[in-house]
């Protein structure tokens, strides 16, 4: 009975979503206040019904209700309670429910934090988000109902994939979806602006904090995914260029271009059409990501659900939203008046170049991801496009992005003098080269060229960001007061750019200087590796709630002093009888030591893989900095105050009057 209530709640949510999309849209078109006013309460009701559905599905999992097919396929009475809860989004149907839940979460956030928005505009934003919800609820109810019953009811469930029985599953998907789905807000704002036919600076200002927040979540979500893969998959990789990873990376690239383009649009009234296009593109890529992961067109390490029928449905959804919004764009964009003027040598130009570059990078990732499918579909053979391809094209395309970040931070809006900029950047450029070359030669012997290039790029981004920050303090008598005057968004930008530099360092050094060793070890054996001594202390059996594991205990010594004990397990999960490796990791700011237990070789010895991964933590640390930066920028004073009073500020006047 209870799962049927969940099903009913979904149907009610659909009814709400339909109401939420139709009436406010029509109301906004012909000025019917009552119809527009419907948007907020209906959106909140939709949230209520989706929450009920999610709660009921969670309840079915927690109470082991195996008469529900989805629960029976993805849970088991032996599964620990915390994973029974996160198993809710462990597979296809539930992750769609999570998708819709997060969409309705963003929608009600918009209804609460949008008091500054004009009625007709808010009505359109909520209506567009409702429309997206309609699409996904239909998809769920017709092809992927999580409440479908199973008859006869099995005595026990098929269990959750052991790969997913991890802390990572609890937080990674919700975070990633917060990002993915968050771009639907930017999309809804863009469509609302296009529908209204009035593309002005205020649209960019309204949409900016939402977009930055979504970007922040996506950054965190991707970083969490990378960290999870690193410790869970057991071979020390943190990025595989797997189609599923690419699916989340593409919206991130466009989202990054979008938040920068929005800044230019808001501040200088430029690139309005381009920004709109990026907003549509970011959301389209989020949908495409869902399509790629959920349709079964890919075979990849992450794709747990595959079903072509669903694929066709998502493809129709995708065509509807992307096609529809591009059509609207094609009709409305040409009539947009060009706004602020700027010279070739100006911050606008550098921002534009950077967003164009990011678009090209995204297209490359898209090309590489879809190419094997296209070639296969055309009957031109089967081929694989993997990490060697992506690294070969991604790095040369991303390098100019780092260069442009540095210049963009220094160059002024509107127009600047190239010789002034050169004068300011000259010293920073030499300093970066000096740091790169010195550090490279001091610490490394192999892969010097790439290492030095990476360190130079990171130093360049950091130094120019700091210089731009310092420029805000020059000619100020009271430095402390000046620090307080600097807007929070500027702190955010500086921190995010420095975070990017951290990522560059982490990626460069880990990729170029990680070493690993495949070794046979029996109890008592020791191995010298990367300046450490690893001693296999003992092997013993460990029992978990739903698995049996063989655990290797390895003591690690440096200069004859024991620094840590690593434990790596080979687990056998009872229900699926599936082996899993749990890596033993000693993490540090400068290096990770990582061991993973292999197979038994004979009755005494086991095979082990040892990894020394320098600076790998910097990749995720950088992502954390970027996220905090995004958080700071999104909660800048002017967005918070806008809720209470919205008056035209001097910067708006300047921007619109030029």
């Amino acid at each position: 009975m209870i799962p049927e209530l969940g099903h009913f709640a979904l149907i009610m949510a659909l009814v709400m979503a339909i109401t939420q999309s139709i009436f406010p849209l029509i109301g906004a078109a012909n000025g019917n206040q009552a119809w527009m006013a419907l948007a907020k309460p209906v959106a909140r009701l939709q949230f209520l019904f989706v929450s009920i559905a999610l709660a009921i599905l969670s309840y079915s999992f927690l109470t082991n209700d195996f008469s529900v097919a989805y629960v029976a396929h993805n849970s088991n009475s032996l599964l620990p309670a915390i994973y029974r809860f996160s198993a809710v989004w462990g597979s296809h149907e539930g992750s769609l429910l999570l998708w819709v839940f997060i969409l309705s979460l963003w929608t009600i956030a918009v209804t609460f934090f949008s008091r500054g928005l004009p009625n007709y505009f808010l009505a359109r934003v909520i209506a567009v988000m409702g429309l997206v919800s309609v699409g996904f609820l239909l998809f769920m109810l017709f092809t992927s109902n999580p409440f479908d019953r199973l008859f006869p009811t099995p005595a026990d469930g098929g269990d959750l994939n052991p790969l997913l029985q991890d802390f990572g599953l609890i937080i990674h998907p919700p975070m990633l979806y917060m990002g993915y789905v968050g771009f639907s807000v930017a999309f809804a704002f863009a469509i609302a602006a296009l529908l209204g036919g009035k593309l002005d600076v205020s649209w960019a200002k309204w949409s900016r904090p939402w977009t930055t927040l979504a970007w922040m979540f996506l950054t965190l979500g991707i970083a969490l995914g990378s960290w999870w893969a690193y410790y869970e998959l057991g071979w020390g990789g943190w990025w595989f260029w797997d189609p599923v990873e690419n699916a989340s990376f593409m919206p991130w690239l466009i989202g990054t271009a979008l938040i920068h383009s929005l800044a230019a649009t808001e501040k200088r009234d430029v690139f309005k059409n381009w920004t709109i296009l990026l907003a549509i593109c970011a959301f389209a890529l989020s949908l495409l990501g869902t399509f790629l992961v959920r349709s079964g067109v890919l075979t990849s390490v992450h794709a747990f659900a595959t079903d072509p029928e669903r694929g066709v449905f998502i493809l129709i959804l995708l065509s509807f939203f992307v096609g529809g919004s591009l059509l609207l764009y094609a009709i409305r964009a040409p009539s947009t008046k060009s706004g602020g003027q700027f010279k070739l040598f100006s911050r606008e130009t550098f921002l534009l170049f950077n967003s164009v570059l990011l678009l090209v990078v995204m297209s490359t990732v898209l090309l590489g991801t879809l190419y094997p499918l296209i070639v296969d579909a055309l009957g031109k053979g089967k081929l694989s496009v993997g990490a060697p391809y992506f690294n070969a094209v991604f790095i040369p395309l991303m390098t100019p992005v780092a260069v442009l970040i540095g210049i963009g931070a220094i160059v002024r809006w509107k127009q600047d003098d190239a010789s002034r900029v050169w004068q300011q950047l000259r010293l920073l450029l030499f300093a970066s080269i000096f740091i790169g070359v010195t550090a490279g030669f001091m610490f490394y012997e192999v892969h010097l060229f790439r290492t030095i290039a990476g360190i130079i790029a990171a130093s360049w981004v950091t130094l120019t960001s700091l210089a731009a920050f310092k420029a805000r303090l020059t000619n100020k008598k009271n430095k402390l007061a000046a620090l307080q005057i600097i807007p929070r968004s500027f702190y955010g930008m500086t921190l995010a750019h420095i975070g990017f530099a951290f990522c560059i360092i982490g990626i460069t050094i880990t990729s170029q200087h990680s070493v690993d060793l495949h070794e046979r070890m029996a109890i008592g054996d020791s191995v010298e590796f990367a300046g450490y001594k690893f001693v296999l202390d003992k092997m013993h059996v460990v029992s978990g709630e739903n698995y049996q594991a063989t655990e290797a205990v390895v003591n690690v010594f440096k200069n004859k002093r024991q620094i840590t004990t690593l434990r790596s397990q080979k687990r056998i999960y009872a229900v699926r009888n599936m082996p899993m490796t749990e890596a033993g990791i000693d993490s540090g700011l400068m290096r990770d030591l990582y061991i993973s237990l292999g197979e038994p070789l004979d009755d005494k010895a086991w095979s082990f893989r040892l990894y020394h991964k320098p600076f790998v933590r910097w990749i995720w640390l950088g992502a954390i900095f970027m996220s905090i930066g995004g958080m700071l920028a999104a909660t800048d004073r002017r967005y918070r105050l806008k809720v209470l009073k919205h008056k035209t500020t001097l910067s708006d006047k300047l921007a619109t009057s030029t």
Partner: protein
Amino acid sequence: MSALFRLTLPFVFFLIVNNVCAYDEPVKFNNIEHEERYQALIEEIRCLVCQNQSLADSNADLAQDLRKEVYDMIVAGKQDEQIITFLVERYGDFVMYRPPLKENTWLLWFGPFLLLSLALIIAIIVIRKQSSSDYTEPDMDDNQKQRLAELLNEELGKGKDKE
């Protein structure tokens, strides 16, 4: 070694051996160049039975066999090209993560750079067009420009504070 360990070890072995091939003997090279080539090669060869893993990352039986074959070929003195040719002849282009440059991958390899050139050309044309249209620079010398910029910055800063 604990008694428990002694008792349960055969059981655990049985489970593991039943699930994956136990052949995971570490490979040893006498020659550092061979070892580096081996490592680089197995990272670029796809395990054909896994979803999306290289030979280096995979534990599947087939991957282990193929690793052994690559190892033997390297030790036998074969060059990388010969090894790749051998594998591609047997399994097709699918086995290589680095797609070969040929007719059906032309777009894949050159597409990004063509797109980049095209995008930059369009961006420059757009910027030039708008920066030359109905906008004339006020006649000022450098000092005046600097002063104006400073004033504007100050003014913008104030505006933000008051907001």
